[in-house]
């Protein structure tokens, strides 16, 4: 049971529709997993189940040795708070809080607010000079990086990103991918949903869902030994983060 995540025969059934059918999957710690598949194939549904936002109709999910089906809703909330970082396609920042405060909000619901730490998280995504801006004063890419900072602030074991680059242009997509590389280099387990093969190419492993079924599960040749590569790429990405900042 060394796997950080163990999915056993999970199905999600909405009346006549089977959004997920008998999906099984094991993810070791530190793996970067990309989920691909056509629209409506159940990617978001699977993410919600992994993220303790939803429960499967059938089957089991074991996160870090904890069997989720045995937990009450309140305990699921606790797992989500303690172990999971969420990144959404639509960013979802609180509009009346500054970038910094949005990050601090995650701290607030997790444990204690620490402005210095929140500032560091923003620094890590290259936004320390945008800390006091409201979301509407930030570009889409910047907003998504605030989201990432917020997802990271409580050091989750598992980072779940549902199409994080879906609304971003190439430059910002690259910025986000660089940050994810950095995180993977730091040992985080990442699950990323994407439509874009070039995004999936960054991952260690790619699975493809079709009609709720696991249709493909392969290790990325390049991704497989990407650990050191990504680490090597960090230095250059730092510079680019800075450059993009000027551009945005």
């Amino acid at each position, binding site marked *: 049971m060394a796997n950080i995540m163990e999915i056993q025969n999970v199905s999600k059934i909405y009346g006549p529709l089977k959004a997920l059918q008998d999906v099984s999957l094991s993810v070791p710690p530190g793996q970067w997993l990309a989920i691909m598949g056509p629209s409506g194939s159940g990617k978001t549904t699977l993410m919600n189940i992994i993220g303790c936002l939803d429960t499967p109709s059938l089957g089991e999910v074991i996160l870090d040795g904890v069997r989720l089906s045995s937990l009450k809703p309140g305990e699921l909330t606790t797992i989500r708070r303690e172990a999971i970082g969420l990144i959404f*396609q639509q960013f979802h920042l*609180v509009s009346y809080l500054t970038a910094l*405060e949005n990050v601090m*909000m995650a701290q607030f619901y997790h444990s204690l607010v620490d402005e210095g730490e929140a500032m560091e998280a923003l620094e890590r995504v290259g936004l320390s000079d945008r800390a006091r801006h409201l979301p509407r004063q930030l570009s889409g890419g910047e907003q998504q990086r605030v989201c990432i900072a917020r997802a990271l602030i409580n050091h989750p074991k598992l980072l779940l990103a549902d199409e994080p680059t879906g609304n971003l242009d190439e430059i910002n997509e690259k910025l986000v991918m660089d940050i994810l590389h950095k995180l993977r280099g730091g040992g985080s387990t990442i699950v990323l949903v994407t439509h874009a093969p070039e995004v999936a190419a960054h991952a260690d492993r790619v699975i493809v869902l079709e009609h709720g079924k696991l249709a493909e599960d392969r290790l990325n040749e390049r991704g497989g030994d990407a650990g050191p590569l990504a680490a090597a790429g960090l230095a250059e990405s730092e510079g680019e983060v800075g450059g993009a900042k000027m551009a945005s």
Partner: protein
Amino acid sequence: MFWKMVTGALRRQKSKRLMVALTVGLGVSLATAMLGVMFDVGDKVNQELKTYGANLTVIPRGASLAGDKYRFEGETEDASAGAEDAENYLPEDELYKIKMIFWAFNVVDFAPFLATRLTVGEGPEAREVVFNGTWFNKTLELPTGDKVTTGVMPLKSWWRLEGEPGSDDHFDGVMVGRNLAAELGLGLGSVFTAKDASGARRSMLTRGIIESGGDEDDEIFGTLAFAQAAAGLPGLAQKVEVSALTTPENDLARRAAADPESLSRLEWDAWYCTAYISSIAYQIEEALPGTRVKPVWRVAESEGAIMQKTQLLIVLLTVLTLLCSALAISNLVTANIMERSVEIGLMKALGASNLAVSLLILAETLLVAFLGGFVGYLAGLGLARFIGISVFGSQVVVKTVVIPLAVLMVLLVTLLGSLPALQAILKLKPTEVLHGR
């Protein structure tokens, strides 16, 4: 952080928050006014009902209540002859004791009366009129050092007065009944003379003309000192009318009224220490030995009953008002939650418990509600004053009890109004709002 989130959220949707504040404010102002009036209404209604006269009459043991009017229908001789008979009169300088009884504060007003006959006109035109001596603005110094001013006018609030009331500083200033004034051709400022029982001529100044709709329209009201001089009864009065705030009678009070000795020690204490009209009467008799105190029952009972009914009505109206406020608030807060469903879903997704989100929403709403409530309270004070003046014709002093009640009302209304919104928070699933499906 919590407060940053609260204040941040409050800065948005200002108009909706304003509506919440307004709703709470309106509810609280009405409730404050009504409760303020209610706590004060005892006094107010009583004062209103004073139009039916005093509710206690103090007479000497030797006289009967009915006697004092008839005495003058031809027994003038007797009355002055009985001057020696102290049993028939009350000593004026003892009357302050009425303000020394256990329920002294409930004694709103009292005034002594001494009636005597005067003859106005000469020869065949001559006619007899009743002159009532009384207090107008008598200031009594109590042994406790307190000073109280009392007089006839508050007891006769239904009188319509033209000119000025009498005054204890104007020995010969009088108020003349409307009919008598018309008959004698007296106007304000007219000076006229009359003969007293001893045949001495006394002149009087018409300060006011009164209209009561009763016998008083044919009589004269002047100072007690004048009446004592005219009747040759210095320092004496025939009766005292007392107006006291009372508690409605109950069984205990009725048994006590029938026979105070029939009560157990405990019952007697309870009766004595309650402002029943019978216990106040009993206490005045204790204070003024040799007197009989007669309650004017009909009026006293209706006072209590009307007061209770009015208070019930006010409580009902207050509750209804608050319910309406709660309903309006529930609409506003629920709409607010719906509008912010993504934000709330996000908080939940980030690991906020239902309790944490609910507290945030409650804190926001309560903050606004208390602001509105505060303004509403101030407005309510004004409204109470307005109601007091326009309905009861007197100042309403809102008691401080109303403040904690107002706070409680804001809390209750807000919590009640927020219930549907809290329900919506519980039901809200992050997955349903976060993925823009």
